[in-house]
């Protein structure tokens, strides 16, 4: 019996990736902020100080605790219906995260399939898919999303579908390039020679090697999805009141800009922090997983 395999396992690459990621300042900061949002958002039903829907005319438009006349009962104040702003912000974080991750996953599935097929098959297939990507880039996604949402109605599922169907281009572009670079390497040719089908090669040989690229684009696109979803709900489409989406909260805060500017400032600040965290994680993953490449 030998103990050699244990020593070999210590130098396996995933370990190195983790260690490099944890030494990357941007990754640590971004990941911690993201984690805080996840805990506060998904823990909102237990952690939020108040019911996010409970209205009261007695306590409308209270300022946050640090401002004059603020109180720690409502740490971030109340909105024009007297609802606790912090509780709404936390519940809104959950909605933002769900929309962001589901939309980015859907977009990732569409974009990855198109990109991998185009990069691997090359030739006519590649030209056809590239045309599809150009078409998608040419269509103004925000206008299209607004037009579809106006007709397709409201609800979180519709928003995720619309965003997923409009945000896939970057996945397709990046993964196509990545597969173009590795699609003719020896191990792929060897798999082909040993009788593996194209589908099997794409799923078994290529997919694991472009996981890094996928994760990088995923973190950026999750941020884009949050921004797009907030813009849509700011305009009043998508998830409807009284749900506490950040976009709706900002739209409502806009009406009280003169009376209580904190409403706009705080929701926007939360949005900025979340997107910033996602972009930071994306930048860090790019440094760690795909060094030397411009994504």
């Amino acid at each position: 019996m030998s103990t050699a395999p244990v020593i070999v396992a210590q130098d396996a690459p995933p370990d190195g990736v983790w260690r490099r990621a944890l030494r990357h300042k941007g990754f640590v900061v971004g990941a911690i902020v993201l984690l805080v949002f996840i805990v506060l958002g998904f823990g909102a039903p237990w952690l939020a100080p108040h019911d996010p829907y409970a209205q009261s005319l007695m306590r409308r438009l209270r300022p946050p605790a640090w401002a004059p006349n603020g109180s720690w009962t409502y740490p971030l104040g109340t909105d024009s219906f007297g609802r606790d702003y912090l509780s709404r912000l936390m519940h809104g974080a959950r909605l933002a995260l769900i929309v962001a991750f589901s939309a980015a996953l859907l977009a990732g599935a569409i974009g990855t399939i198109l990109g991998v097929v185009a990069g691997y098959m090359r030739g006519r297939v590649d030209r056809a898919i590239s045309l599809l990507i150009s078409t998608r880039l040419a269509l103004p996604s925000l206008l299209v999303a607004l037009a579809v949402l106006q007709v397709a109605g409201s609800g979180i599922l519709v928003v995720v579908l619309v965003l997923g169907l409009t945000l896939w281009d970057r996945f397709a572009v990046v993964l196509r390039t990545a597969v173009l670079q590795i699609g003719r390497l020896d191990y792929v040719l060897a798999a082909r020679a040993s009788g593996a089908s194209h589908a099997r090669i794409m799923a078994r040989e290529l997919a694991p090697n472009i996981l890094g690229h996928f994760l990088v684009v995923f973190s950026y696109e999750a941020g884009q999805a949050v921004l797009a979803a907030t813009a849509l709900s700011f305009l009043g489409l998508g998830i409807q009141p009284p749900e506490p989406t950040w976009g709706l909260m900002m739209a409502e805060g806009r009406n009280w800009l003169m009376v209580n500017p904190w409403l706009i400032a705080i929701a926007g600040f939360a949005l900025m922090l979340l997107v910033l965290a996602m972009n930071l994680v994306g930048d860090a993953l790019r440094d760690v997983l795909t060094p030397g490449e411009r994504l």
Partner: protein
Amino acid sequence: MIGLVGRKLAEAALVALIVSVATFLLTTWTGDLAISIGGLGASREELDRLRVTHGLDRPLLVQYLDWAGRALTGDLGRSFFSQEDVAPLILSRLPVTATLAVCSIAVGVALAFPLGIAAALRQGSWVDTLAQSIAALSQAMPSFWSGLLLILLFGVTLQALPISGADDWSSFVMPSLALGWFVFPILLRLLRAGMVETLGADYIRTARAKGLSRRRIVLRHALRNAVLPVVSLAAVQFGQLLGGSVVVESVFALPGIGQLAWHAIQRADYPVVQAIVLFVALIFVAMNLVADLINGALDPRIRRP
């Protein structure tokens, strides 16, 4: 070069064709046009009559060819509501949105150039970190939020600028700042990366060895090459801003294309929505073509097939 122009033109024409089909299907599939003209209360006979008068009873392909054929001659249809021709309607709103897009890119460029050049010259220094941090921050701020913060500062607190409408140049200051602030990080990153690359190139070392001044090297040799991709990106950004300024136009009540589209969407005025989506998409295709040709004209390596 002629080969490249031909290839790119054919590609653009093909994309334009697919875009027109997609735009047509988008509005046909997402709702019953007869209902949006007649209203939800319309009777069955009334709806049938509307379908015949608007040609909605014909096969889809015939409808598309009719629509696309008219679009080629500049006839983009009529608004369901005001009965106005859509093409002149779009053209009357275009100056506002085009001004906004140009000013926004100017703001983005004005921010990106000094910061990008400084960051590239002192890679890894505090200037570089600062520039990249500002870029990261602005990339995470949606333009409608920065717009509202600007309103809070200049419109409400200082009362220095108008917060809505498009009466004179001062109405464009805040919207352009808000959009330019969002455009700037992409320009900065591209410019910085290009400068870092060209500053490391052999011909820069040669120029340095010849004893040229640092200022001359940076401005005449490095910047000139790094600026190409930025110019073509700016062209593409212009195309994107035409369709992407909806939210900012809504925040500042600017009567541009975005506002026209948004109002049309809210009233299910399909001919207008369709025409704007097509118009914006075609401009994007054209700007992309321009960008490709600029790159091809300036960089001989791209010309090879």
